[in-house]
Every structure is written in C-alpha cells, then in structure tokens.
C-alpha cells in the first residue's frame, strides 16, 4: 500500500531553492549560478503568462500532434489475463517519443531569452533528435553531446540529427555514455553561457530544470487522467512508466499524485540483474549523493565515485535519477521496481506481436513490469502504461541480440 501525500505538499515542490525535501538544489560551478537564476526568473514569469501557454499549447497540438491517444491494448491484456492495460501513445508524437514535449517548451524559453544557440545531451538519441528538430524549426544553432559508445549503438539517430542540421559531438571521456555527455554539455554551457541555452532532456540537472521539464511533460498525465475518465468512467488503478532520468514517468505520475487510490510504479533498468551490480537502478539499489547539479539517488561506490551503469537501453543507462523521484521514493507515494534486460526484450517482442506496436527498449522495461502487475490484478481493474517512445531506433540492437545480421 502506498502512502498518501497532501496536495499542498505536492504543489509546494520544489521550494524556492529547488529542493524536493532533501533532494534537488543547485550544485554547480559559480559560473552557471547566474544563468540558472535568470532561467528560473524567466520561467516563473512565462509560466504564468497566458500568451506563452497559448503558444506552447498551439505547438503541442499542431507540431507535436497532441493529444496522444490512450489506447486499450486488448490482445496483450487478454494474453496476460489480468487487469486491462491502456497505453499512453507518446510514440505517436512527432519524432516518436515524449521527449519532444519538453524540447518544444524549452526552445520557446530560449527564443524568449534571445539565445541563438542550443545544446543538449542525449543517450538513446531521442532527446537529441527532438532538440535538433525544434532547433531546425526555429533556426537555432544546435550542438548535441553524445557518448561515443552511444554514437555507435544509436547510429540511426545520429544520422537523423545530422540531417536536421545539428552537430553531433561524440564524448570519449569517462565511460563514454549519457553521464559523460551531460558533463560535456555542462562544460560547453559554462564556456558559452552568454549565447547558449542548455536544453536538458530529463528531470535531472540543477534547479530549475527538474521543475521546468516536469511542468512541460505533465501534459501527458493531464491528458491520460481526462482520457481515463472519459473512456472508462474512472481513474486507473495503477500507473507504470520506465525511469532513467525520469521525465516520462514524472510527466505521467505528477497529475495523479493526489489521487490516493491510484498506485504508481516507476520501473528502472535492471540490466544484467540487480544482484549482479551491473544495472542502472539507483532508486532500487543506490544511495543519495550529488551529481550533475542535484542531490539524488546515485549509483556510486564506497568512495563516492559514480559507477558505470549497464542497460540494454541507452536511454536508461544513467547513474542518477531526477530528484523528485528520490523524494517520491522516500515518501512512499511511488513504488520503484526494476526490469532486467531479458524481461524488457521479452516484453518488447510480446507487445510488438500482439498489438502491432513496436516500443522503444526503454519503454519495454515499463511493459515488462506492467505484465507482472496486470497478472496480479482483476479484469475489472485498469493500468495506464506510458508508451514513451517507438522502437524503430532499436531494431539494430534487437537484431544483434537475437543473432540476426541485417
């Protein structure tokens, strides 16, 4: 049973310092403190400005293609034989994932702040593609930082970004994955802070990013809540979403946090299995610390060094997690679990074959847990899963794992 949260407490997070209880904050070099304060001021002003909201809503409707459907996965639910599962179809958005909701919003902020250049970090490449896309549309210069290892395993998305006019910068420092891409993006920002807007792709990073990204992504949860009421006459019994940095999860969860009857599950990447230590599940098996501008649960060793993560999905291969998730874990409102590589791949195949919907490998982690959860529930109950992205980008990875040469 999950614990209840007072609605005023939920609405008060983060506080003026950007903290969610003990988590969050602004742990960055002094050079960036002014830029963060400026962003906070501009965002607080624009978020109350009806013209800005109208512009954002207009772009979400006509450029992204919102609202995304809430789709009942009948064959898959029948096969499992438990609760009915509904998929929030973020894979149908322009560029194929939920990431675009946030980049559209942050790019509008960049435009209002008069910044001609945007930068982004990316893991699976979805956020990089979404940023390159909106940069092309607004005529902004765009540099995307990507771990050299991810450049290899996500070559299709790398080429997509290049076609869109972005410069993709492979990062070879550290473990050459998402965390190192974020380090490098921070270094670029500290150097070019005058003319550059850093479009962070998840609810991680220093305040105000976890708040801004959450607010832009909450459109998913608001829609899903209204769609559930319209389609089933009531709220879902449970929500499930995968958690890397955690933006698709917080965007779905947040509008439901005060609905006490709705159980909420965040699914981390179990990699080779939590017991092996080779995973990317800081909430399930990490401890609090400071990385990338905020205090949150981390994968770290006994000396406070950040450890390498392992996941079949590049988008979940991150040693930290958004600070609001850390808070939600400690309060008990959200239950964090994990699905390992094998479980995620199995769910990927099952949903593809029963529904004709090919999910991203990140999303497949949420689907894997949803199967277990649904099986423990009754057909009168419903689950909403965030189908956060489509799986085209992962076809080569899946083929390789299945031993197929394309």
């Amino acid at each position: 049973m999950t614990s209840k949260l007072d609605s005023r407490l939920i609405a008060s997070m983060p506080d003026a310092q950007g903290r969610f209880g003990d988590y969050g904050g602004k742990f960055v070099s002094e050079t960036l403190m002014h830029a963060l304060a400026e962003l906070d001021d501009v965002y607080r002003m624009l978020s109350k400005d009806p013209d800005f909201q109208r512009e954002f809503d207009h772009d979400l409707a006509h450029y992204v293609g919102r609202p995304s459907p809430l789709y009942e996965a009948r064959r898959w639910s029948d096969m499992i034989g438990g609760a009915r599962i509904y998929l929030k179809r973020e894979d149908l958005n322009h560029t194929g994932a939920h990431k675009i909701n946030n980049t559209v919003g942050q790019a509008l902020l960049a435009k209002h702040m008069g910044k001609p250049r945007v930068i982004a970090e990316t893991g699976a490449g979805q956020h990089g593609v979404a940023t390159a896309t909106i940069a092309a549309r607004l005529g902004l210069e765009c540099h995307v930082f990507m771990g050299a290892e991810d450049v290899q395993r996500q070559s299709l998305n790398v080429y997509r970004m290049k076609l869109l006019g972005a410069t993709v910068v492979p990062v070879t420092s550290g473990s050459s994955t998402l965390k190192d891409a974020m380090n490098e993006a921070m270094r670029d920002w500290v150097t070019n802070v005058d003319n550059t807007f850093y479009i962070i792709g998840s609810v991680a990073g220093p305040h105000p990013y976890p708040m801004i990204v959450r607010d832009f992504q909450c459109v998913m949860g608001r829609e899903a809540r209204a769609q559930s009421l319209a389609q089933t006459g009531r709220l879902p019994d449970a929500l499930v979403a995968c958690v890397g940095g955690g933006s698709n999860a917080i965007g779905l969860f947040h509008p439901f946090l005060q609905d006490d009857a709705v159980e909420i599950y965040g699914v981390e990447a179990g990699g080779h299995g939590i017991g092996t230590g080779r995973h990317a599940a800081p909430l399930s098996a990490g401890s609090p610390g400071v990385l990338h501008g905020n205090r949150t649960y981390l994968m770290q060793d006994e000396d406070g060094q950040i450890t390498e993560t392992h996941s079949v999905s590049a988008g979940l291969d991150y040693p930290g997690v958004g600070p609001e998730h850390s808070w939600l874990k400690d309060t008990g409102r959200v239950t964090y679990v994990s699905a390992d590589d094998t479980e995620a791949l199995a769910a990927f195949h099952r949903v593809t074959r029963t529904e004709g919907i090919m999910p991203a490998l990140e999303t497949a982690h949420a689907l894997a847990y949803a199967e277990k959860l649904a099986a423990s529930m009754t057909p009168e109950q419903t689950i909403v899963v965030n189908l956060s992205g489509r799986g085209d980008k992962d076809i080569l990875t899946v083929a390789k794992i299945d031993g197929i040469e394309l």
Partner: protein
Amino acid sequence: MSRIAQRFADLSAAGRKALITYVVAGDPTPGLTVPLLHALVDAGADVIEVGVPFSDPMSEGPVIQRGHERALKNRVRLRDVLSMVSEFREKDPDTPLLLMGYANPVEHMGYPAFADAAVKAGVDGLLTVDVPPEEVERVNRELKRVGMDNIFLIAPTTPEARLHLITDQASGFIYYVSLKGVTGAGNLDIDDVSDHVSRIRLCTELPVCVGFGIKDAASAAAVARVADGVVVGSALVSLVADVIAGGGEPAEAMAAAASLLGEIRSGIDARSVTDAL
C-alpha cells in the same frame, strides 16, 4: 590564525604575491604526488592545492579531466588523498594546503567525518567546485567546527548582488575564475580580470587570487599585477603527465615542473620589483 591566513599576511608584509599550484592527487602515479608537492614548494609555491579525483569532474578542461581519470585508474580515493597530505605534513609543517574537488566524495564520507580526518591530516581548506553558497550550510558547519577554511569561486558571470552572499561564507582567500569556461581554457583579458578583482575587493578584506588560463611567466606576471595571487594548474598537470607518458623518470617530471614554476615565480616577483620602483 589559519595557516592560509598566516601565509597571505606574511606575503603581504613582504610585498609579495602568492603562487598557488594545483595538481591532482595520484596523477600520473600515486608515488609521485608527495615528492612533487615538496618540489613545487621548493620551486616557489606558497600555497598547495591538491585535486581530489572524481569520476565526473564537470568543471575541468581536457587536461585536468585526464588527470582525474589517471588518478582513479590508480585507485586513488579521498582517503588516499588524506594519507598523502599526512605524509606531506611530516616534512612540511608550514605550507598551507587545500583540497579542491567535487561534492560527492566528501558528502559520501560524511561531512563531520571528512572534517575530522582532513584536519588531522593537515588540510587547511576546502574548495568544492559544485557547492555554491546556497548549498554550503552542511559542509561549512563542519569546516568551522574544526577551523578549516572554505574557499569559494567567484566567476565573471557573478552579479553584484551575489558577491556578498559568497564573501560572507568564504574564508582563507577568494578564488576568482578568470574566464567563462573550464580549467585550462582560453586566453586572459587582464583588464577584465582587473575590473572584477576591484569589484570583489569592495566586498571583502580576503586576498583575491586568480586562476584558469594562467600558463606561463608572462600571464602569471600580468595577473599578479592586479591580484593577490595566481593559480597554476593545467600547465603543470600536462607537463608532468607528458614527461611520464614519454617514458621520463619521476625525477625528470619533477625537474620540469620545478623549472616551469621557477619561471612563473620569477615573473611574479619581477612584477613586484617593478611595481616597487
């Protein structure tokens, strides 16, 4: 009076400017660190900054990033760094020494445990790059308890309104970051540095030292004209690493570092003489 404050007071009385050197503990080899620190002091360093290796050194340029990576590969951790400081203190009880690094290793050890262990080892101050005054309360409480200084960065982007927020929490000295960017980057604009240093002096009596982008005697001398001290980091780190990577002996690396530092020292001191005339 702390060792850091004492050293700046002595330098000020002698009309000299401080030379502060930065190396990463355990880079390029753990055995080289303590002898290198002594060599730097012999070559004219007034204050020693020791970098604590971290897996994600967000504010460092490529040169010092590689230094952190080499040190971690050598399995040098915060506890090892403190042991190195203890060893350094056996022969050098006077030179002020501060640790420079990132929040997480210190936070993971626990601020009270860190403060006790660091002061016992002979550490005089801490500079945590990713802990601005807004986040410093937990660490400062412990540093004050054991009498360690907390050194803060001020950047070219720091607005007027933040200066007091920083100087109110700071002790030891102020570290002015001479440019927007990472360590080891770009070229200095001395007039710009001078303006900012003057602005900081209106807020604090603490010495103001300047780092980032100081590579040689000329740039060090120019900065020493407007500040109380200069910090040399990337130039030393790359020099030592290059000698060792090229198959050189530790003694050669130390000699090369001492030679560079000697030139920088002369540049700074020549400046003092010129100004005195």
